[in-house]
């Protein structure tokens, strides 16, 4: 089915010729998933059926305490200062955004009365403004009413450079104005297909104006409520010790009926991931553990105790290999890997294609990552509507050898291929991390068989992932031939994810290596598609553009995707905790309950 056929069908749903259900059934026939089909409808302005909540309790409270374990405890409770997800999670107990992201990448209203769309008039057709209707009768924990003023204030607070909010990127170029006491308008400077970035999800938690007004700007650090949050969320603040403990107690005035279920919540920090997994899966001392970065083998063993289960939630993070397109070994204009240079070996696409066939992704998944890393040929793996179905991967040493042979790389006496006096020798770097070193070994062995000499290098994580301009071993500098790490896609829209292959994003000395394109690969077609996608308001066309970008980068073999990394967490068996790969773990805390 092509774009036109799809449009015809969507139109039929709009004029109620066929029902939503029929449409979705038809789409499944074409190999689309339910969420993707439903997303197509929603993006085309057809109201989405609210995800039926499985929330069962029929009264508020009475659930006793909820004990959660965060092996890195939150260090501050102002969501706009959050250094990492741990801080966002701590804040999310108390604060709420206008809307959150569910696991299929759909919006779910929290403080908004409804999700803006073109049909309800919230979303303008030119993509330059959004009108949010706010929920009425919402109270802050101190009893003051929540109004449009709070939303306008939060945007202004975060946008002020003197506040030093980490969320400034989402607010600095927008204008938020109040229409009436419960309606706000967000205006963008240019057409913005990803309009649901500010005021939504982990970057959009709303602060109470009456408590933070005096602390906007340079005095932001002095606000007493940075440590004593007053929000609209399901639990009220009790006590906070940075890095150790956050405690909350039920909010009896919460704006949704029968919620929350638990009488109190506790978020304990510190320790390590393995013992956190033990405390939930094996002893049941805690109810929930965040981010279990533990080998799958061990998780499976702990689960056998029968007390808890591992939640595996798909998201957009991917462990992948980058191939350097520039020459990292010669200095040009005082800069290694200067974008004017060409890599002596990897500029030959045959070598890149051969390397692509030498990565045993299935083996890596099976023997190293298990459920926590799924072999993939794509760079963009989620949400489903952006995933290419045309790519595939293959592990074949013979084919790789033949390809190299054909390109003129002949085996020398030591078994290593040579062409024009250049030995086929590559240095492969990654951070020090058990699974990564094992993956490096697997690839090195396959490369050896195909006549490629691979030297392995591993750098301490704190150096490799630092932004220190003086250190040559950071991943953004990429002064090496091949490297591997995980890149994250925290939000369900790929625009800020796919910029990693745009030619204007080259990491260079001039931008202190803060550009996002480390491989320094470029393609005019890619650049053009990306620019077009930035202002394309038609969601179907835009999704097609991202699919194309993914295919261009994969076909150009500047990268070799290895496994995509779902998020893992642990919960005791009777805890019902709806999770999402596109928002915080606690995004739907109001709906958490215990099966009794």
């Amino acid at each position, binding site marked *: 089915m092509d774009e036109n056929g799809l449009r015809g069908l969507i139109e039929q749903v709009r004029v109620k010729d066929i029902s939503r259900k029929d449409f979705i059934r038809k789409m499944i026939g074409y190999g689309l998933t339910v969420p993707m089909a439903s997303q197509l409808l929603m993006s085309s302005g057809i109201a989405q059926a609210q995800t039926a909540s499985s929330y069962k309790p029929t009264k508020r409270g009475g659930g006793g305490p909820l004990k959660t374990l965060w092996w890195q405890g939150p260090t501050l409770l102002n969501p706009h200062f959050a*250094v990492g997800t741990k801080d966002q999670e701590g804040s999310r107990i108390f604060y709420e955004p206008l809307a959150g992201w569910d696991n299929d990448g759909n919006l779910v209203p929290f403080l908004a009365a409804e999700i803006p769309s073109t049909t309800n008039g919230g979303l303008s057709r030119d993509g330059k403004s959004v009108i949010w209707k706010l929920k009425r009768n919402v109270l802050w924990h101190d009893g003051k009413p929540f109004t449009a003023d709070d939303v306008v204030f939060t945007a202004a607070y975060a946008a002020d450079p003197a506040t030093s909010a980490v969320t400034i*990127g989402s607010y600095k170029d927008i204008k938020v104005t109040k229409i009436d006491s419960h309606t706000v308008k967000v205006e963008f400077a240019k057409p913005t297909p990803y309009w649901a970035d500010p005021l939504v999800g982990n970057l959009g938690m709303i602060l109470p104006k009456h408590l933070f007004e005096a602390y906007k700007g340079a005095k932001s650090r002095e606000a007493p409520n940075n440590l004593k949050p007053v929000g609209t969320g399901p639990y009220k603040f009790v006590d906070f010790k940075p890095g150790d403990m956050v405690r909350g107690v039920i909010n009896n005035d919460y704006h949704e009926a029968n919620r929350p279920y638990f009488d109190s919540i506790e978020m304990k920090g510190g320790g390590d991931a393995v013992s956190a997994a033990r405390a939930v899966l094996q002893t049941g*001392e805690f109810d929930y553990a965040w981010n279990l970065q533990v080998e799958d083998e061990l998780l499976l063993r702990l689960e056998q105790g029968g007390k808890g289960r591992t939640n595996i939630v798909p998201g957009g993070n991917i462990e992948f290999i980058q191939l350097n397109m520039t020459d990292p070994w010669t200095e040009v204009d005082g800069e290694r890997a200067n974008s004017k240079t060409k890599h002596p070996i990897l500029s030959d696409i045959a070598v890149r294609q051969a390397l692509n066939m030498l990565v045993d992704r299935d083996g890596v998944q099976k023997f190293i990552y298990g459920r926590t890393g799924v072999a993939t040929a794509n760079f963009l793996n989620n949400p489903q509507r952006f995933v290419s179905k045309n790519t595939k991967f293959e592990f074949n040493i013979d084919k790789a050898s033949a390809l190299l042979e054909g390109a003129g790389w002949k085996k020398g006496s030591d078994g290593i291929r040579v062409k024009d006096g250049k030995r086929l020798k590559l240095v492969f770097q990654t951070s020090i991390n058990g699974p990564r070193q094992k993956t490096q070994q697997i690839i090195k062995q396959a490369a050896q068989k195909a006549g490629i000499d691979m030297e392995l290098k591993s750098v301490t994580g704190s150096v490799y992932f630092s932004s220190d301009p003086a250190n040559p071993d950071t991943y953004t500098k990429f002064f090496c031939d091949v490297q591997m790490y995980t890149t994250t896609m925290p939000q369900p829209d790929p625009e800020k994810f796919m910029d990693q292959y745009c030619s204007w994003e080259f990491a260079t000395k001039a931008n202190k290596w803060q550009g996002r394109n480390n491989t320094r690969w470029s393609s005019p077609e890619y650049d053009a598609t990306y620019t077009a996608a930035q202002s394309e308001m038609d969601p179907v066309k835009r999704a097609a553009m991202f699919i194309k970008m993914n295919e261009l980068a994969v076909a150009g073999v500047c990268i070799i995707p290895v496994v995509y990394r779902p998020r893992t967490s642990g919960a005791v068996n009777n805890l019902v905790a709806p999770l999402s790969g596109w928002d915080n773990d606690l995004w739907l805390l109001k709906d958490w309950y215990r099966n009794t």
Partner: protein
Amino acid sequence: MFSYILRRILIAVPSLLGISFVLFSVLALAPGDPFGELVNNPNIPAEVAAALRAKFGLDDPLMVRYWNWLSAMVQGDWGFSFISRVDVETLIMQRLPITLLVIGSSQILALCIAIPVGVYAASKPYSLFDQVASTLAFIGFSLPTFFTGILLILFFSIQLDWLPFVYRADIAETGWRFYWEHLKQMIMPVTVLGLFQAGSWTRYVRSAVLDVIRLDYVTTARSKGLSEKVVITKHVLRNALIPVVTLVALQMPAIFGGAIVTEQIFRVPGIGSLIISSMLANDTPVIMAVTFVFSALVIACNLLADIVYGWLDPRISFA
């Protein structure tokens, strides 16, 4: 005596300055940066981290930063944490009571084991008791705490399910249950640390007592017909404990510094876990404050040990 103390304090000033400078430069030279996590997040523009660095003065030259820190410190301003944006003294004061409680109890436990066992072993050298005590002491201080800690967790928490292995400073209970829960969660960390310390102290007490017990005045006391109990407690122990007191005094700063490894294993929210998480996050003001207070305590306790030593042993003069 007074001039001696004054002299020592004056000597301490340049050493503290030197220590603080070395600490500061090592931290400045170490890789990493407190806003590294922001830099790796594609949703956060690079300028945000750059602006934060500029705001917190991280881009200034080393000497300027050191001078700013030192002049603030002298005025009693310890700065604020880059990560949690909370004043450093607030962070330390939140953690200190727990560290004092857990580490303090473990030191008391260690003393309660080391002194009787050491003295008894020395009074009957090479007896079966001595052999067993020495072997256990060797095992005690040879096994690292991260090993014994995990062993205890596996046995008491996972196999038997008797004790919790996550330490919670805030327990939502009242009355006797509050104390009971606290006691239960303290057992394992205190045992691990206490036994480790007791191992080395037992050896020390034993050899100190052995040194004294052979002296002529002890023989005199015995020949006077004093009972063995009186000889040991009144005559031997008093003199033997002089070096032990010094040793314990030198150990005092550790009570403040916490136990990094053990606190991490049992999730005890003490100073040790504060410093390790600050180090991982490159939170310089917190690391500086904790290490600086620690080094000041080491110097102070050294002085204290010397003074106590002179007071216990009149043969030593401070002239």
